């Protein structure tokens, strides 16, 4: 989230799209309804009428996978009706930037597409630069090559009739949302967009969110109280585990994973450190070498020296462009290319698409270490239904782990607040924390390498690794230390002292930090700030519920990101009733500003979007794989054979794997005429491994169901409560029919298209509850993130003669 949970209350309009906030983040509705009771309009745009819709001012159903068409129509509406906030647009976004002559767009494709590699040459999308390599601008926004004009032209194609035709949303409903939301373009109005997996789980996931960013920029809604782009993150510490990066393509703190072409530290920094010659651009990532070198210093300790590139050479290097994420990982496992591995607190045999393939793939491993609080479909995959365990060669370990109330440590909520939790009780039996087991295991491996070196022991022996796990000590390592006695800006620090802020992290090995974003969370002066429970606020802060003294928030305790976009060039708030920051008597008050520079009007200021090279919000985003403007493409499995915007049916760059088990239905395939979308339920968490073992929650949601309209049920001869079989090109799933008026048939291109929805939290280890819905979903993903398309695929449905999975 750019903003945070409490801040939702400050919104005048709330667009919930790609999210079912009331069901999956129930406490968010405390703040949504707070806003609503003070006059905010709450809109839910989603295929299904859910508990969120029930409490919204209105619900608008659309077909899964058509969000960009819907949002593109809204961008068009805002531009055509001049509802945008022009001053904000000119001063803070790249609307005025001139785009190079090579950029073009035709029939759904931007210039530079190579159909053989299915990739774009992104250099074709570059800005026109002046002699200092600063983008040329036209603040009048009139130049036909400026971003604003190109965007206007691009989205002029998204007319209400075309949008309605492909989304299934009536023009009347389109306008209802467009008008209500566009009203937040007024300088003193705030609109927030709450999204979740309903936007990311698509082959156009990133561009769904880009569309929302464009809207928010047009309306001046980023950086302000009650605004922002707010990803409602779904798992317990998914924000923290992303920051600390349990992901292949990054290292902690959102820095790139080294690739083979960057053989030296200098290569790495050259490739990854952006340069701007614009004195008005903070270009914050120019500091990346300080953060990266401090990370290496934290990883390798005394063994990281200037002479050895701080240990950079010891790191693994991935192949450029190679994908090591789930879809590809399990594909390689299926092909027998992987030998063994670890699965910590995750249930991929339920939660990864095409789970029949995932289950088979695991059979190919020599060894598998699973770590969990319960037996799950993953830990027990070797004796799944229909399999003779004697045929499965895998050596399987199941390590019992501690649960939240049984350990100390920090987690980071979706609003980036880092909060400490305390162990209340001991773990049951022999269960241990992840930290305990990982530290001990690694120490054992290190001992083995000491005794018998084996292959390239250096990185294993040279890491700075604790003897025992201690959450408090790790929290300090994450914050970082000075590694030498040093004087920084007249202040002396001793070796071993905690670094007070990332502003003093250095690239010369004098500082260490396991994550620069968290530097400042644990200081000599204030101790462990994640433990702070001080509700004190200034009256200005209290007005918007900022709580700056409660816990700590990355970065530098800034609660609302890009907050300098909430003020005009003189540093005065656009909405004085809900001030985030304000320039008063030569300093900023309110939230922690995005850098302490004076207002832009002084001539000494910096543009507010400090994480972009040029400092401006990116209406035009030349870094994305499939183009600088979001464009509607159909899901990979789509019920239509064409759409009204171009001849390019699907995302030209979507990711996929191919095997005998990766079968896709053709567009408009008559065998699979129904759209399936999948989701969580309030009462279960993710794949359900934990919550199905909680009798009280299982009682409330006991078995797999499929929600469908009465019209479809009638067509298929299905009654409410009947057992049914849902089938895709990849698998079959049993479920109980939930026939409900909350699912509406949609009229698409003049024809009725039915959509059904199923949760994915049920699995065979809980007797009689049903089994993985993801046996239906395809292994295709977004080209930027490789996030799979769980939210739209094709199926058929029929009444079951008998049920074997549900009883």
């Amino acid at each position, binding site marked *: 989230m750019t903003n945070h949970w409490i801040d939702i209350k400050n919104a005048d309009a709330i667009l919930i799209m790609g999210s079912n906030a009331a069901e999956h983040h129930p406490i968010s509705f405390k703040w949504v*309804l707070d806003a609503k009771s003070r006059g905010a309009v709450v809109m839910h745009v989603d295929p299904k009428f859910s508990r969120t819709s029930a409490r919204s001012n209105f619900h608008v159903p659309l077909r899964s996978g058509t969000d960009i068409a819907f949002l593109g129509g809204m961008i068009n509406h805002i531009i055509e009706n001049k509802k945008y906030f022009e001053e904000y647009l000119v001063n803070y976004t790249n609307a005025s930037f001139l785009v190079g002559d090579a950029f073009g767009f035709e029939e759904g494709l931007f210039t530079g597409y190579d159909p053989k590699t299915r990739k774009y040459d992104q250099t074709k999308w570059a800005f026109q630069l002046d002699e200092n390599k600063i983008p040329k601008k036209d603040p009048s926004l009139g130049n036909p090559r400026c971003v604003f004009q190109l965007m206007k032209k691009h989205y002029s194609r998204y007319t209400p009739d075309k949008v309605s035709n492909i989304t299934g949303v009536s023009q009347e409903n389109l306008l209802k949302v467009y008008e209500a939301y566009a009203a937040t373009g007024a300088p003193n109005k705030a609109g927030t967009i709450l999204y979740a997996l309903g936007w990311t789980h698509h082959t156009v996931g990133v561009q769904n969110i880009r569309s929302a960013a464009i809207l928010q920029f047009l309306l001046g809604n980023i950086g302000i109280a009650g605004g922002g782009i707010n990803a409602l993150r779904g798992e317990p510490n998914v924000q923290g585990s992303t920051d600390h990066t349990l992901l292949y393509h990054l290292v902690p703190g959102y820095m790139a994973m080294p690739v083979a072409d960057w053989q030296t530290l200098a290569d790495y920094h050259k490739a990854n450190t952006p340069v701007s010659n614009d004195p008005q651009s903070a270009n914050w990532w120019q500091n990346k070498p300080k953060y990266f070198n401090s990370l290496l210093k934290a990883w390798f300790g005394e063994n990281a020296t200037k002479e050895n590139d701080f240990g950079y050479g010891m790191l693994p290097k991935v192949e450029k462009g190679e994908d090591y994420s789930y879809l590809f990982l399990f594909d390689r496992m299926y092909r027998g290319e992987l030998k063994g591995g670890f699965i910590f607190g995750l249930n991929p045999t339920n939660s990864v698409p095409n789970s029949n393939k995932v289950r088979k793939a695991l059979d190919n491993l020599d060894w598998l270490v699973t770590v969990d609080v319960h037996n799950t479909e993953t830990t027990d995959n070797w004796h799944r239904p229909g399999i003779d365990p004697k045929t499965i060669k895998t050596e399987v370990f199941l390590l019992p782990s501690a649960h939240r109330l049984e350990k100390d440590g920090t987690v980071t909520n979706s609003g980036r607040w880092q909060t400490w939790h305390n162990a209340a009780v001991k773990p049951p039996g022999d269960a241990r924390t992840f930290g305990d087991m990982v530290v001990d295991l690694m120490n054992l491996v290190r001992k083995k390498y000491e005794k018998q070196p084996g292959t390239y022991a250096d990185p294993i022996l040279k890491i700075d690794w604790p003897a025992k796990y201690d959450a408090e000590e790790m929290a300090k390592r994450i914050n970082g230390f000075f590694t030498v006695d040093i004087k920084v800006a007249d202040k002396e620090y001793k070796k071993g002292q905690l670094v007070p802020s990332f502003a003093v992290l250095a690239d010369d090995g004098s500082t260490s930090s396991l994550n620069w974003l968290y530097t400042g969370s644990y200081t000599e002066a204030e101790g462990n700030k994640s433990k702070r429970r001080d509700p004190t606020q200034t009256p200005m802060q209290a007005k918007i519920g900022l709580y700056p003294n409660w816990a700590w928030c990355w970065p530098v305790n800034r609660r609302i990101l890009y907050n300098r976009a909430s003020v005009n060039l003189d540093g005065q708030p656009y909405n004085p009733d809900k001030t985030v920051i304000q320039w008063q008597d030569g300093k900023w008050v309110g939230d922690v500003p995005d850098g302490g520079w004076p207002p832009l009007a002084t001539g000494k200021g910096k543009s507010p979007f400090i994480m972009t090279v040029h400092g401006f919000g990116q209406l035009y985003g030349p870094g994305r794989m499939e183009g600088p403007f979001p464009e509607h493409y159909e899901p990979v499995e789509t019920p239509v054979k064409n759409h009204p915007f171009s001849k390019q049916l699907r995302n030209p760059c979507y990711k996929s794997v191919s095997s005998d088990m990766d079968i896709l239905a053709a567009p408009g395939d008559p065998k699979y005429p129904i759209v399936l979308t999948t989701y969580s339920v*309030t009462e279960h968490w993710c794949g359900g491994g934990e919550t199905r073992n909680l009798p*009280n929650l299982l009682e*409330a949601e*006991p078995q797999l169901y499929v929600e469908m309209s009465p019209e479809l049920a009638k067509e298929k001869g299905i009654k409410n409560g009947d057992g049914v079989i849902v089938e895709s090109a990849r698998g079959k799933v049993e479920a109980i029919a939930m026939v409900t008026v909350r699912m509406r048939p949609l009229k698409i291109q003049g024809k009725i298209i039915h959509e059904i929805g199923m949760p994915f939290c049920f699995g065979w280890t809980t007797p009689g509850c049903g089994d993985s819905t993801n046996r239906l979903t395809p292994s295709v993903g977004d080209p930027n993130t490789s996030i799979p398309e769980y939210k739209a695929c094709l199926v058929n449905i029929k009444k079951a003669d008998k049920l074997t999975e549900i009883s």
Partner: protein
Amino acid sequence: MPKSFLIDTSRCTACRGCQIACKEWHELPANKTKQRGSHQNPPDLNPFNYKLVRFSESLENGKISWYFFPDQCRHCIEPPCKGEAEGYLEGAIIKDDKTGAVLFTELTAKLSPENCEAVRAACPYDIPRRNEQTGLLTKCTMCIDRVSNGMLPACVKVCPTGAMNFGERADMLELAQKRLAEAKKTFPKATLADADNVSTIYLLIDEPKKYQPHAVAGLSGDLSRKQFLARIFGPLKRPLQRTASV
């Protein structure tokens, strides 16, 4: 000072925090349930669910409505269940005048199954359920242990949205009127269900029958609502001091 609940269904998201919190506080065992084509589970109140969120949906003139009703004992001002039970066994059902809580005691185990059925039949909201194993009659306790210690009932404490409210009856009635006035702006049919007769007041945004058959007293009977209320809650009109029972 007697207490009351205000259950504002215009703010309920059916997160079922209340349903689960009730079970957890009372440490009630789970029922084996099945999916029957509804999110409402268990399907009905039972000895192990004193609180149940009921779901009802409709499609009228193209508009979908989905109503949530966190069902529980109304803790009637003049509880018919208590009157019924006293005919069989004094003290099986009591009313705590301090809080207004209507409580089923362990003496209910001495009531025959038929007596229990009669007590249930006497309840205009169909709340009491008999535990077949122990013979006890069961229902919401108003978390009398928590309330006596100055805490909110578990279902109120847990509620994120202000759907569940609890406090002094006078305060709740005032809040009810305020919320009703607010709700009426959007939902002209909004009402307070049997507010004069019960300590669990529901704010409904549509006709009671759209929620569930026992949303208000007498919905499914032959008598008019007015007649019905007069009949079962007649004693309410007596002076308050005469109702003292503890």
